[in-house]
């Protein structure tokens, strides 16, 4: 069995869980890491016992024989790095999202692009960029692996197998990712995030929903079922006057030019519907689920929380530093602790599929079409919310 040599691009928080995931995959080995700071790259290499570290991806590609790069860099860098890596003949593993709209090179720092740039214009730019990446990847003949972990989360994979066994039509899907708000300032402005709750959180359930319908179409007709239209509403629930006046805030405030809540209603080309919600204003810990309504079955994947483990504490300090679940505000009362978060979220499973796909020269379950569809559906949804109308997306995706 051929081992895939992987070079990590980035050493931040996400690189930590990618590293933990790669460690569980026999078929791959991380051989180098690179990032803007040579020092931090070296520290990461030491921490994880990696042979080499570099201050740029170009240096890494020039000096080490890697088969694939794992891009764990901010969203606006995905596109240039993906193009450079593909041109060098390297397979690509790319964190979501594929790309987005982050302003123009000459946009002044203080311009709130989420409030000033028409969403239609953003969609056009993003489509151009997606297609540029797609062309490069196709011409280089490399694999593009889209690191949408929901596609690989065990509960969702079980849902897919149950749906396959049932064989009924998937008529409706409901999915959501919400919690009480990202702490990072980068998440709160369009310039760095490329959108609000829908982009940062909604992209997960959206990725899983699109994959499920693609997969259903492939199984049934040999071609994917894709979205035909989207209707979307967004809100800024933390901008409500009475919220602002409250003396204590339990949800994160200070969102700049991005929404803190949104819902997208997709209609697929077979007539089925998906409702995807995302919010940064939801208390009670992260809320990740996907429910599929078939004509002959109903299946729900409670990615988080689920009741694999249930706990109760009469006061919040009792569980000390023990991890409960992402973004839970208190450890007191009844809780649903996540027994093994990386596994539950599908991180090792996605890396295993990527390594196998590269080795076998096949498409990964989460590949370029999904990455592109997610991005274009998201920005079409923003057009819908801004213009207050249903947006046809079949032509955008074509």
């Amino acid at each position, binding site marked *: 069995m051929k081992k895939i040599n992987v070079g990590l691009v980035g050493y931040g928080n996400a690189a930590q869980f990618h590293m933990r995931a790669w460690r569980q995959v026999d078929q791959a080995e991380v051989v180098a890491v690179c990032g803007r700071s040579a020092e931090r790259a070296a520290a990461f290499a030491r921490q994880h016992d990696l042979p080499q570290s570099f201050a740029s991806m170009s240096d890494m590609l020039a000096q080490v024989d890697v088969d694939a790069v794992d891009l764990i860099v901010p969203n606006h860098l995905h596109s240039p790095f993906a193009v450079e890596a593909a041109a060098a003949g390297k397979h690509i593993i790319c964190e979501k999202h594929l790309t987005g709209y982050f302003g123009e090179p000459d946009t002044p720092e203080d311009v709130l692009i989420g409030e000033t740039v028409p969403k239609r214009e953003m969609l056009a730019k993003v489509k151009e960029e997606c297609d540029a990446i797609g062309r490069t990847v196709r011409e280089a003949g490399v694999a593009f692996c889209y690191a949408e972990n929901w596609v690989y989360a065990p509960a969702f994979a079980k849902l897919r197998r149950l749906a396959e066994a049932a064989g009924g*039509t998937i008529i*409706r899907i409901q999915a959501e990712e919400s919690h009480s708000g990202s702490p990072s300032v980068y998440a709160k402005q369009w310039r760095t995030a490329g959108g609000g709750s829908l982009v940062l959180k909604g992209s997960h359930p959206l990725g899983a929903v699109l994959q499920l319908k693609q997969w259903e179409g492939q199984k049934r007709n040999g071609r994917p079922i894709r979205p035909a239209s989207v*209707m979307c509403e967004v*809100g800024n629930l933390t901008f409500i006057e009475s919220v602002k006046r*409250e003396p*204590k805030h339990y949800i994160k405030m200070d969102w700049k030019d991005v929404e803190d809540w949104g819902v997208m209603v997709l209609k697929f080309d077979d007539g089925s519907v998906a*409702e995807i919600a995302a*919010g940064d204003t939801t208390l009670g810990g992260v809320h990740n689920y996907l429910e599929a309504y078939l004509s002959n079955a109903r299946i729900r994947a409670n990615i988080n929380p689920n009741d694999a483990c249930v706990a109760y504490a009469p006061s919040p300090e009792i569980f000390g530093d023990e991890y409960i679940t992402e973004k839970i505000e208190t450890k007191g009362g009844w809780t649903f602790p996540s027994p093994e978060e990386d596994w539950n979220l599908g991180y090792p499973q996605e890396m295993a599929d990527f390594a196998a796909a590269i080795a076998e020269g096949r498409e990964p379950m989460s590949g370029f079409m999904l990455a592109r569809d997610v991005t274009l559906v998201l920005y079409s949804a923003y057009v819908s919310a801004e213009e*207050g109308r249903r947006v046809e997306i079949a032509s955008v995706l074509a």
Partner: protein
Amino acid sequence: MAPVRVGLVGCGFSAGLHMRGYGKLSSADCQVAAVCGIPKQMAEEFAAKHGIPQAYGGLDEMLDKANVDALDLAVPNHLHAPFIIQGARAGKHIFCEKPLTGYFGPDDVKDDDRVGDAPKKDMLEVAKRNCQAVVEAVTSAGVTFGYAENWIYAPGFLKLWSMAKTAGGTILRIEGEESHSGSHADYAKRWRFSGGGSLMVKGCHPLSAALQLKWWEGEAKFGKPIRAESVLCETGNFTWMDAFKREQQHHVRTGWYDVEDFGIIVIKFEDGSIAEIKAGDTTLGGIRNYLEAHLSNARLRANLNPNDACVAYAPAADIFDSEYIVEKIETKGGWSQPSPDEEWMQGHEQEVRDFVLAIKEDREPLAGITIAQETILVLYAAYVSAEEGRRVDMKPILAE
């Protein structure tokens, strides 16, 4: 004061539900004095079964001959408005099943007409006029109007509101849904009788509850209601999908004539908060009725049905025999969540009691004509949104 004498109009499923509510009240508070229905024989059978002294072959005859203080309208949707107006003019208090009114076709409509194909913005105009006529009739007659929206009386929902009031946080987002695997009644499948599909017949419940919640929140905090500002809606016809039609066996109801079998309404309120209201006739697993409120300092969920007050498991479907489990569950096998007392849990008993006591105590019932009307206007604006594929501004629609 003498007991309230109720005349029941209709002798179908809802009438049976209401009878259970009246049965829980003291005879010093209320008596069901008469029932009417077409054909008269059905009314007579219903009267015999429930011990109602008089039965009539229609509303005209009952109003003419029976001595009643109040009418309980448990009739198909298209009959609500004309019966309310007729009853109010005769000086009777009115208890009306949801939804209040709607659009049911032109005056010369025939039963087989595809009424649902009419432009939704025309429907909205008619529905609005019907609402106004009903409100006018009730107001000028000075009678009590009780809106039989059981969700507003459901203990789970009232507990949610009580906790929201105590928490005091802003209600940022409401999610509500009523779905199951399809109405059995044929009139629910034709716009001509139902005035719409899943959204009208099922969605009106969580919609009224959501509108009521924001209404109460506004009154409690600012002395005036918080009302809907815009709606966005998508509808679907899942049972018309090609892949669905090709399936050999159907587990959800089919035969929808000119109405949607699924819908979602996204409401933006004037304070910037949101409600997502969903309704479907294509959902397996028994009825699904819930409302969740996301506050700035709390999160509350009312599981009307199912909830886990009782949980059961049977290795085969015949084990629980004829014991009732929950509305529209397809099998009694496997895990289930049997409803211990559905009428109580869904607020059916409580709505009847409140209506009777409101008349006796000469006060407004908890669920009145305002929310009934607001619900219809939001629903038809939602249909406009789905048809025209655009967000619809509620302000001009809600303006007097």
